[in-house]
């Protein structure tokens, strides 16, 4: 059982070595250490699962024990967390190998690898947690690691500020998460997952408490997985190195929210009031993400917004109670989005940092392998049949369609539209980048090392393979999550037909647009629905102005200081008055005595 902690602590050891002695070692050994430890834990994980069936909970120590609540630092391995840790470690190691070459020559190379290993440690902690607190520690740790990695090139001010923005938006979500933990701790007197799930399904759990805790946990998930109100940080997080975006902002970190909800799905089954909300927010985010992605010019921002919309898809699935399709989509999305990001990274690396797709062109012949990987990735994303993306997307659409609620029909229509839009913007990007065009730059391309293209190709193959060989069916009974929807029979034909026709139509339009170089950019999309404006100009500046003007000046100075200074002046004024009493004339003193005497005499007799 203690191997579980070993798996967890290997990346931590990597972080410590690189962190403390990184600057002394040269680049090669840093890279070696950086990649070795994740691979080691991946190998240990596969060896253990293959050899002995060592699922179950292992407790390290009790973190705290009050009368009615004991929280212990425990890890748990079951099918769900095994799957997630495979994703994390698998994609993580590939990205480590990829970034050895990508970050080649960067002078704080060791620092980069230490942060990556730190991220892996916290992500594993989050995935393998047995109770909400350990998950929260992983949750915040992952936010911290993403803050460090986004602001990795801290020389430019806006990198640091976008890192800070990511961390702050995550913290807003985390406050919700904390509230959820407290409500659960108060109501069920425990925060272990299985105890909560068991207690939630019993009768005496009060509906309001369950709904409240589900809502707040969902707010936490929104913060982390960039759903509608709190999604602003993900596009800005692209200022970090591309492997970072691939690992953190595509495959692993952003999926934490979905994993949490799937982990607590019995609780969410009972939370009948919250599920529709999740579904609606999910769909809206999906739609908004897709819409904005269509007008993005920076290749990484296109992929960022597509991640936002795909996450929206997953949350919509969760909203309608289709937990398994959501996990499936998460699984497939992790692979093909990682492929897209890595190949985009390779492209940027080749074009010496050029990220604007309108300035790229004609890379098909120059980078054939990359083109194939990008093509496969975008096919999955667009949901073309026979790809893994198609299978998971169809599963979600079918479940939303056959969901018994009144609004589920509208949801399905919206999701179909987003599917079409996704197909449109990904194919537009593909055509713009790879089809020969005049504005492509003729500079000699930066050589792409083999170590960079290997992971890209591997991921591309994986994203296709995952779809075939009825792996989804195997996974369904492997995860045995609760199923509450029976799919209507007509859905099997209607949904695939509709989505196919729509995406084909979208790809055609995309081709037309790239050929004609038509560039129509509606204002509202341009401004990303004014969300950034809302946060930056409206919320933050009013808060700062409020604190500065109202609190700092009016309250602090005008009221409190003024009160103190007025007391001081009163004392000084009275002390001046009192000292005037002794004005030096003797006769005044004698007069004072007689006056006081007579006054007291009068008071004496009339009292």
């Amino acid at each position: 059982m203690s191997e579980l902690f070993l798996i967890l602590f290997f990346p931590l050891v990597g972080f410590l070595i690189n962190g403390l002695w990184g600057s002394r070692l040269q680049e090669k050994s840093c890279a070696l250490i950086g990649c070795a430890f994740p691979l080691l834990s991946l190998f240990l994980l596969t060896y253990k699962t293959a050899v002995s069936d060592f699922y179950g909970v292992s407790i390290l120590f009790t973190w705290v024990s009050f009368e009615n609540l004991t929280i212990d630092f425990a890890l748990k391995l079951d099918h769900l967390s095994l799957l997630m840790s495979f994703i994390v470690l698998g994609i993580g190691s590939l990205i480590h190998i990829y970034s050895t070459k990508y970050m080649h020559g960067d002078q704080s190379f060791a620092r980069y690898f230490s942060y990556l290993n730190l991220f892996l440690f916290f992500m594993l902690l989050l995935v393998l947690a047995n109770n909400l607190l350990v998950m929260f520690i992983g949750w915040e740790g992952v936010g911290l690691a993403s803050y460090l990695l986004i602001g990795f090139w801290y020389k430019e001010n806006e990198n640091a500020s976008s890192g800070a923005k990511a961390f702050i938006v995550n913290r807003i979500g985390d406050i919700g998460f904390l509230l959820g933990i407290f409500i659960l701790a108060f109501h069920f007197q425990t925060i272990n997952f299985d105890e909560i799930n068991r207690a939630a399904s019993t009768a005496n759990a009060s509906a309001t408490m369950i709904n409240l805790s589900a809502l707040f946990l969902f707010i936490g998930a929104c913060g982390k997985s960039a759903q509608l109100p709190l999604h602003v940080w993900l596009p800005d997080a692209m200022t970090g190195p591309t492997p970072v975006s691939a690992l953190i902002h595509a495959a692993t970190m952003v999926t934490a929210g979905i994993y949490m909800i799937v982990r607590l799905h019995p609780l969410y089954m009972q939370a009948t009031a919250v599920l529709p909300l999740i579904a609606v927010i999910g769909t809206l985010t999906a739609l908004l993400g897709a819409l904005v992605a269509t007008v993005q010019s920076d290749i990484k921002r296109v992929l960022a917004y597509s991640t936002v919309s795909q996450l929206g898809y997953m949350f919509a699935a969760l909203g309608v109670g289709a937990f398994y399709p959501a996990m499936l989509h998460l699984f497939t999305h992790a692979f093909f989005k990682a492929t897209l990001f890595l190949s985009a990274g390779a492209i940027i690396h080749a074009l010496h940092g050029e990220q604007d797709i309108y300035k790229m062109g004609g890379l098909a012949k120059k980078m054939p392998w990359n083109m194939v990987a990008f093509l496969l990735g975008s096919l999955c994303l667009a949901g073309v049949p026979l790809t893994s993306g198609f299978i998971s997307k169809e599963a979600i659409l079918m479940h939303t369609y056959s969901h018994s609620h009144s609004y589920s029909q509208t949801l399905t229509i919206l999701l179909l539209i987003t599917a079409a839009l996704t197909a449109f913007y990904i194919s537009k990007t593909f055509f713009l980048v790879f089809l020969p065009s005049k504005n492509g730059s003729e500079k000699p391309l930066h050589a792409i090392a083999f170590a960079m293209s290997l992971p890209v190709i591997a991921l591309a193959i994986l994203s296709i393979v995952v779809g075939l060989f009825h792996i989804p069916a195997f996974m369904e009974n492997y995860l045995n999550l609760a199923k509450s929807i029976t799919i209507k029979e007509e859905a099997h034909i209607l949904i695939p037909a509709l989505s196919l026709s729509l995406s084909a139509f979208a790809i055609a339009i995309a081709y037309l647009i790239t050929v004609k170089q038509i560039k129509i950019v509606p204002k509202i999309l341009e401004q990303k629905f004014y969300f950034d404006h809302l946060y930056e100009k409206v919320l933050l500046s009013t808060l700062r102005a409020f604190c500065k003007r109202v609190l700092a000046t009016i309250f602090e100075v005008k009221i409190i200081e003024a009160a103190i200074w007025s007391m001081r002046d009163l004392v000084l004024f009275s002390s001046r008055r009192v000292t005037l009493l002794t004005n030096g004339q003797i006769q005044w003193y004698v007069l004072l005595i007689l006056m006081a005497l007579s006054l007291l005499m009068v008071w004496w007799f009339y009292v």
Partner: protein
Amino acid sequence: MNQVELLFYGGLLIVIIGLLGVISRKNLLSILMFQELSLNGVNLVLVAGSILHHNYHGAILSFITFIVTAAEMAIAILILLLLIKKRKTLDVTFYSELKG
């Protein structure tokens, strides 16, 4: 009203005149004289008391007051001499530098 009350109110009147004189006069010497006057006024009251109560306490005390006032005035006048030598003036208003 019989003799004793007359003596009593007479003495009281003299004391009050003495005190008022101290306040109003400008010349230091006259202030001292008025204080002497008020002290003697008190003697009258004391004597009136001893007449009323037929015992000699009041008389003894008035006798002692004579001694005390004499001593006080003696020293006071000597000090006045010193002041005149130094400050060449007896006006009270000049003796008011120490203040605040």
